[in-house]
């Protein structure tokens, strides 16, 4: 399958979301990702590795980009509580050491 280009609206998608969507499909294609600030767009040049169906690949990439964008929203919104839960979970376990301190000695 020949190389082709996809464009994503940078107002709707973060660069990270597009990068992750492409990474997940690395087995099917290689990608060159460029952020075009003046056009507020993210351009992805797709070079398929095999002669797979272009429509399916485009559809999967767009679905994955949407999912990744939603994951970004969840991650950002829950970052504080996630850190709180993890800190609480591992407090008093001996697993959290101050930086630079040696591990606990064994018996």
């Amino acid at each position: 399958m020949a190389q082709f280009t996809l464009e994503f609206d940078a107002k709707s998608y973060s660069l990270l979301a597009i990068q992750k969507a492409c990474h997940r499909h690395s087995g099917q294609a290689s990608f060159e990702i460029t952020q075009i600030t003046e056009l507020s767009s993210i351009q992805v040049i797709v070079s398929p590795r095999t002669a797979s169906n272009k429509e399916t690949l485009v559809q999967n990439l767009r679905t994955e980009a949407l999912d990744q964008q939603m994951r970004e929203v969840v991650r950002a919104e829950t970052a504080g509580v996630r850190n709180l839960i993890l800190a609480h979970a591992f407090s008093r376990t001996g697993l959290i050491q101050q930086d630079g301190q040696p591990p606990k000695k064994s018996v």
Partner: protein
Amino acid sequence: MSKFQPVAFYSKQPESASAQYQLLPFRFTQLDGSRYVATNIAGEYTILDHPTLQAFVDHKLPATDPAYVTLRARHFLSDIHSQMGPDFLAIKVRTRHERLAQWTGLHIFVLTLRCEHSCPYCQVSRQSEDKGAFDMSQRHAERGITLALSSPNPNIKIEFQGGESFLNFDMMKFIVETAIAWNAKLPQPKNLSFVAATNLAIITEEMLEFCSAYGMDISTSLDGPKDLHNKNRPRPGKDSYERTIAGIDLVRKRLGRDKVNALMTTTLASLPQVTDIVDEYLAQGFKGIFLRPLSPYGFAIKTKFFRAYNAEQWLKFYDDGLDYIIELNRRGVDFREHYASTILTKMLTSQDPGYVDLMSPAGIGLGAVIYNYDGTVYASDEARMLAEMGDTTFKLGTVEDSFETLFTNDTFLTALEDSFAYSSPQCNDCAFEPWCGADPVFHWGQQQDFAGRKWESEFCHRNMHIFRGLVSRMENDPFVKNLFAQWANRC
């Protein structure tokens, strides 16, 4: 002031209050064309269609939606009725990871590389029966015991492996008796237990008496019906099956019914025989089976056994076997598949069964450590198999090193850090991450990369398929949901 909330607090939220909730950390992955699996930070899951997922993330899910109640009950959101959600999640996360603080509990002693079997898929290079050079020395055994008893873990399991471990029975006896004696002198003695991996072909009354005296467990190999087993596991006399079955019978009589477990390995010849293999385990009185693919190490690679079938063929074998086992249970036969049970325990409870391949941080070193016959120490059984192939990347050191030196080995710590699934590319977005694990030895062996490129990782492909299969079966069939809950809670 009353400690109780007013009655109005317990009334349902009005629809207008639909946006009054806070998202708690969760991940989602497509289950099929229309549904997503969402898991919270403690690994509890729910199934959502895309419109519901989108509405939930957009804070537009009405409190009256049936999914809302599930999402609240499973700590995907907190609202005025569930402000303890983050605290509960923290307790569940702590419970799930409690093994980390305990450090290594399984200490494997490779007593000898000698074996009278010549299995073409064997994962360690075997030597002929008369080569004493491949036996563990007393000095190495003593140092291994010292290291095992140095682990902070209060429960230490010592496992004997080979070759055929009973070909060095004298050293097995020495290690058991010495470990018990030295343990008794510790200020805080540990709970010691012992297990011997053996093909049972050379087991004697004396050996059984010793195992009985120390409550030792036996782990053996049974690949399936007689023809398949003997084809897979050749030995002089071509009687591996007969000896294994006789050995299982003897162990049960002398040690007790539950003291022997068996493992099978899938070869190309096994693929069309999964129901026969399960039936063989049933006929031999086992309560379950662990359907295992070949590991890409040792003779399995040299003899091309590993590539004799592909991942898709093995997954079909696994699916057929699992469905057959479910049908047996539907007919009233109590039998389970152990790999599914291990995963289901992670899916449906807050416990982590501690299966080395499904741990993150990786189970190497943390879950198990290997003292090889020659005194080298490896981070896992697979690590020593890789070393037998000439790659000593996961060698921690030797038994002469201190416990601290071995477990602060740079390569070991780098492998743990690089492969940690919580922060590994793709894994950190994957809803299945709380159920999965990091397998840096597998990925290093296959891709020379500790984390592994997931899109070409057989480990990832195989486990994703199994996770989806288990969830789908539960969602589609109430009987299976009930059955799997039983499997999860008996692990």
